[in-house]
């Protein structure tokens, strides 16, 4: 790449100032400044054979099997939070959406909307984090696009990623397949991501050592599908948390659910932060957790497969699917009573007294 060429042979005699430079409108103009940004920043980090071809699209032969495709926009604020940043988050988010079909993710594409004035150092750090996440996951970013908008028209950087993957034969995972009697499992502690991000919001900063759980879950999913090919539903409880995701699945499948609060794994620090802010962990976002629903006879096998994987070590069986025309998700509280766990209404906001 151009970094290694003698100065005279480089396409751009003056390198991007990655320490003090900022994004300006010329970086999105389609001219040489944009070409330089792509070459010296995006390609340098994300480099792979398909990207290096420099086409507006990546061409590849799809493997045999059903293809799945998903896209996900990322607008997290702040851009850097304990345990991650928007870069790795944008890779994990789409890999997970693809993986929730039981699929093996193959390739990613990424689209960046940059705000004029974004420090190039921040962008460099974000793209480096994306590249590491993609490389760790074995899922390359093979196509991309960059646009720049005027200051104030975006919040630093927005990243949309799109992914394709292939589903192994015999696997049929979908949100409408939950059946009465099925077991409901969660892959680990809930609420870590939301609390980590909230702890760094400017008007809300509080001390916590909680890190975001952002992670690519396709390895865990592969282990689960290998152990129990007949999994009915998988979904990652991101925005709206566990509660909202269970309600989505209940509605899609036309069933009710009964879960047990005492069996849902929640870190003590997350519980404490939620107490302080008047939030309920079941509504707080996750970025490295999944919910699995499977036939009751497979539950123990699936739980063991999850717990054997590093990203599922704290997996737990939290409840059952029931027949219910009202499609209520009900929870037995720690105290022993019952209540509804509803869809999240509006933003989760602190109580005032």
């Amino acid at each position, binding site marked *: 790449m151009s970094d290694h060429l003698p100065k005279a042979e480089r396409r751009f005699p003056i390198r991007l100032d990655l320490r003090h430079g900022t994004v300006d409108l010329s970086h999105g103009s389609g001219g040489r400044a944009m070409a330089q940004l792509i070459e010296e920043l995006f390609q340098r980090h994300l480099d792979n054979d398909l990207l290096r071809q420099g086409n507006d699209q990546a061409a590849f032969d799809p493997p045999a099997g059903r293809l799945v495709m998903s896209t996900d926009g990322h607008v997290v604020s702040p851009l850097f939070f304990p345990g991650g940043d928007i870069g790795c988050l944008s890779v994990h988010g789409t890999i997970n959406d693809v993986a929730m079909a039981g699929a093996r993710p193959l390739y990613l594409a990424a689209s960046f909307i940059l705000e004029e004035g974004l420090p190039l150092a921040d962008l460099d750090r974000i793209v480096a984090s994306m590249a590491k996440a993609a490389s760790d996951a074995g899922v390359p970013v093979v196509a991309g696009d960059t646009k720049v908008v005027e200051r104030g028209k975006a919040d630093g950087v927005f990243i949309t990623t799109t992914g394709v993957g292939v589903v192994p034969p015999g696997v049929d995972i979908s949100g409408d397949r939950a059946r009465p009697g099925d077991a409901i499992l969660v892959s680990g502690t809930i609420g870590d991501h939301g609390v980590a991000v909230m702890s760094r919001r400017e*008007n*809300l900063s509080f001390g916590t050592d909680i890190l975001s759980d952002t992670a690519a879950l396709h390895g865990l999913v592969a282990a689960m599908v290998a152990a129990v090919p007949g999994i009915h539903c998988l979904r990652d409880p991101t925005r709206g948390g566990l509660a909202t995701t269970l309600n989505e699945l209940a*509605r899609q499948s036309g069933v009710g659910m009964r879960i047990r609060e*005492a069996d849902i794994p929640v870190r*003590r620090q997350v*519980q*404490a932060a939620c*107490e302080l802010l*008047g939030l309920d962990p079941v509504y707080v976002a996750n970025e490295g957790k999944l919910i699995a629903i499977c036939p009751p006879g497979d539950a123990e096998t699936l739980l063991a497969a999850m717990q054997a994987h590093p990203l599922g070590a704290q997996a737990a069986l939290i409840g059952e699917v029931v027949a219910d*025309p*009202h*499609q*209520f998700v*009900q929870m*037995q*509280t*720690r*105290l*022993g*009573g*019952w*209540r*509804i766990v*509803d*869809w999240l*209404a*509006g*933003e989760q*906001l*602190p*109580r*005032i*007294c």
Partner: protein
Amino acid sequence: MKYVEEFRDQGLARNLAASIAGEVDPGRSYRLMEFCGGHTHAIFRYGVQDLMPPNLHFIHGPGCPVCVLPIGRIDQAIALALDYGVTLCTYADLMRVPGSERRSLIKAKAAGADVRMVYSTQDALAIARADPGRQVVFFAIGFETTTPPTAVALRQARAAGLTNFSVFCNHVLTPPALRAILATEGSEGVQIDGILGPSHVSTVIGSAPYGFVPVEFDKPLVIAGFEPLDVMQSALMLVRQLNAGRCEVENQYTRAVTPEGNRKAQALIAEVFERRETFEWRGLGHLPHSALKIAPDYADLDAELRFPVARGEGHEVKGCECPSVLRGVKAPVDCKLFGTVCTPENPMGSCMVSSEGACAAYWSYGRFRHPTDVVAAAGVTA
């Protein structure tokens, strides 16, 4: 979590439930009004009702500051933000409370008003300090619990010489509301045998101000904490008083409440505020000496004086039963709007907005107990 989990312990809950079940007289009913939205929230969130015998009923009281704010005051806040162009700082719950013609602060914000959600009075002060060119108004609401922080903010603003900060004061007082509820009890079909008294409010005012409840109204009152075991233990204490024919003010929440309360906070309130002649409460009407206004010494920081806004009548949504729900006369499910057109996503009345409102608690936590077709239909289209 220390000091929290102890008050949600399942084993202790079972023991308390067994004691209550063993001690209630099957020949009578126990209708206990929990005054605060915090109690209502605990009862529903933890499913406390499931652990109670069938003849013990909780009646939900008016102790939700967002719920009792009359529509006219919401209209005034919207006018402050829109007509005067001030930066209006408010607690989150207030953003979605419908004013007249279903306007709200969140809609005013979308229309260009500068409405900011804050977590404390200190956030509002910080906004004022950071932008001396902007008039910043803090929308102060709440019972005696949230009054001292507003008093502190006023003193700080005065000390810092901030000329761009003021307070739209809507602080209300608990004992007059309790008196109003008890004065009409029995006449409207609501029957109350005992009261679960305010929790956090009592940390400020103490237990002494409730003395009139047994003396004038012949009802027992137990000051009750907000954790589920607090509520259950307080229910047991009320059952015991009623069974024994006793009628006293008792304090279950001894870990935080003393008879005299927080003297320092009381002195602060007395310095900065004075009682209004009268104030309108949603559901309870105009109650004499039931609210606070900013005292003459601090009048220059009073948003009502700095930005005179006409007091409107405030129009309730037709059919909305919030006023009756707040008096305990009706349950949320008795309202025709409940779950049909009024849900937390699309609230028609204040009791559906606040997480401490009885309607929101019924809907979000308890509607499986009333799974009528209407409720279910609304549930799947939510």
